[in-house]
C-alpha cells in the first residue's frame, strides 16, 4: 500500500493499528472520527493509532464505512448493522469502547456505553464480579456500610445469569 494522498479522485488515508497493520480508507469515511479529522486538518494522510488494535480497528472501519453512506433509504439496514455490531462478547465491547474513545467517535461511544450498561443492568454484584473477573476489594464491614446506604434500592430481583 503506497502512502500516496490520492487514489483515483478520492482522497485516501492510511490508518496504522497498534499491531502495525495498515488500512487504507477514504478520507470522508475516516473523518467521522474527531481524532482522525484533527490529524487530517493538520495535513496528515498517514495516521498511526497506537492505542487501537487491529481486531477492533477492522470492526470500527466497518462501522465508519456503513455510517458514512447514511441516507434516508438505508436507515433500517444501518439499524440492523448496529444491532449485529454490538452483539458480541464483553471483552470485545470493552476493546471497542476504548478504541472509540481514543478515536473520538461519539455516536459509536454512546451506542457501546448503552449496550454495556444494558448488559450490566439488573445483574447482582456477585454476577458482575464473576463476569468481569473482578476481585471484591471491600472488607465485609465496608460492604455492609454500602448495602445499608443502598438499602432502599435493594428490593428488586437480581439476575444471576452470566451472559
Amino acid at each position: 500500500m503506497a502512502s500516496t494522498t490520492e487514489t483515483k479522485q478520492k482522497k485516501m488515508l492510511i490508518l496504522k493499528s497498534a499491531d502495525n497493520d495498515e488500512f487504507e480508507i477514504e478520507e470522508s469515511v475516516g473523518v467521522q472520527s474527531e481524532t482522525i479529522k484533527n490529524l487530517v486538518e493538520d495535513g496528515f494522510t498517514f495516521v498511526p493509532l497506537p492505542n487501537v488494535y487491529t481486531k477492533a480497528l477492522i470492526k470500527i472501519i466497518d462501522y465508519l464505512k456503513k455510517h458514512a453512506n447514511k441516507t434516508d433509504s438505508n436507515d433500517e439496514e444501518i439499524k440492523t448493522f448496529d444491532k449485529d455490531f454490538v452483539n458480541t462478547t464483553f471483552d470485545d465491547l470493552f476493546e471497542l469502547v476504548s478504541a472509540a474513545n481514543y478515536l473520538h467517535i461519539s455516536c459509536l461511544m454512546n451506542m457501546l456505553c448503552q449496550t454495556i450498561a444494558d448488559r450490566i443492568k439488573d445483574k447482582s454484584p456477585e454476577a458482575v464480579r464473576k463476569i468481569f473477573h473482578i476481585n471484591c476489594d471491600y472488607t465485609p464491614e465496608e460492604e455492609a456500610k454500602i448495602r445499608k446506604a443502598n438499602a432502599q434500592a435493594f428490593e428488586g430481583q437480581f439476575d444471576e445469569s452470566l451472559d
Partner: protein
Amino acid sequence: MNNAGVGVDPVRYDQGFSSDPMADLFCMSQTIEQIIKKPKNSRTNSDDPTLRLPHHILHSIFSYLTSQDLAHVRLVSKNWHRNTPSYFALNLDQSLFFKKIFPTAIIQSQFRNKYTDWVHSCLETSKSKLNKAEKRILRIYYDENINEIMRLIDGNNFHEVYLRFKDSLDYLPYMFRSTCFTLLHLNRCSIQPHIFHGEEKFNSLQELKLDSIMLFGETLSIFISKCPNIRELSLVNCMFLRSIVFPTKLDRLKKLYVELMNSCFSITKVQVIAPSLQVFQFVYRDQSHVAVNMDIRACRMLREFHLDCLKFPIGLDPQNFCSDFPRLETLLMGPCEASNTVKISSPSLRKLILFFTRMYEHHVVSAPNLCTYEYVGTTFKPFLNPSAAPNLLETRIGLAYNVEKINRAWFLKLRTRLQHFSNNILLTLCIRDEKEVREELKSRKEGNCCSCTMDKCWSHFLKEFEVHEKKSSEKDKLKFVFKFTWQLIIS
C-alpha cells in the same frame, strides 16, 4: 419502591457525593496512563477488563443506568464505586410529616399549607446539592396537594421520578416537565387523556412503569406515542385498559411487561411494533375467556416471550408462531387454550416452560437446542418427546394442586417416563396435603431395592426432600408444600 417511604424523616436525602462513606477509603491505585500502557500480551482470563478502561468511560457507561442499578454497581468494587455518577434523592412523604409534627387527624387539614412551605424550604436548602448532582431523583408518597408540590419541584429537572398516590382515584395533574427525565414510576392514580393534549413530547423518557393506574387504552396509546425513546415499559394491573396498541413504531423498546390479573375490562387487542424488543411478558387473566387479538409480528428480535393467558391469542398462528421470532430463546406458555394443534417449533429455543398449559398428546414440541424444560401442572404428561430435544440438560416438573394419587406405582410410571430424558433430571414436586403424602410415604415397600437391578423403589434416586410451610389466603390456614428432587443416574 414499596417500602422506600418508611423512614424517620418525612423528607430524606440520600446522596452519592461529599458525604460518601467510602470516599476516604479510596485511593487512586492506577493512573489512566498506566492502564493504557499495559502491554497487550499481559492479559489473562483473570484480568479485570474494566481496570483497563479509562475511568471516564466507566463513568459514561454507568450514566446510562438508573439509580437502582447504580446501587448494585457501587457494590461491585471500589473502582466501580468511584466511577458511579453522583446522585441526590429527595424523598417526600406527607403522611410521615403529619404523623411526626401533627399527630391528630383534625389538625392535619389546617396545616397542609405548612407542609407545602416546608417542602419549599427543603428545596431551597438542598438546591445547590441538587444542581451539582449528576442524577436527581424524586420520590413522592401519598401527597394530597400534589398539584402544588409538583409546581414547586418542577423546575429542578429530575432524572427519575417515583410517584405513589394514596388512592387510584387521585388524578395526575400534569406530566413532569424535565429535560433529562429518564424514568417514571407511577403508582395508584388516574391518568386523564387531556394531560397529553399539548405538543409536548417526552423525548428523554426511557423507563416507564404504570402500576395500578386507571387509564384507558386510548390514553395509553397517546402517552406512549409521545415517548419515542422508551426502552422499558411495565403495565401492572392497570384498570380500564381494553387495548394495548402502540400505533407508532417503537425502535428502542427492549422490554415490555404486561401483567393484568383483575382487569375491569377484557383486553381485546395488543399491537406492538418494536423491532428491537427482546423481552415480552404477557400475563393476563380475565373472567370472560375471550381470546386477545395480538399483533407482535414486527418484534423479530424477541428473545424471551411469556404468553400466559387463558386463550391462545388470535393473530398468532398456533401451528407456526415461533417462526415469527427467529431469536427466541425462552418461551413460557400459560394455559393458552387453542382450537387448533399447538406446535412449538424453534431451532433457537433453549428454555421452555409449560405453565398449566392445556397441551394435548397431539401437540408438537420440536426444539433441537433446548437445554431446560420446565413443566408446571396438575399431572405430568410427557409432551416433550426426548428425541425432539437431544441437548436437554435439565428437566423440572412441578406438580401442584389436586394430585389425586401419589403411590409407588405412580412414581414408578413417572420415573420410567423420565428415564427417556437426559441423565441429569431435576424433578420438583409440590403436593398440597401433608397427611396424604405422609401416608403414602409410609406405605412404600420395605426391603432393599438397591440390590435389585430392575425394580427400584421410588425413593431410590431421591436426592433431596424439603418441606415448606405456606400460608394460604383463606383465614391463614397453614399448608405444607413438599419438594422432592430426584437425580437419575443411568449407567
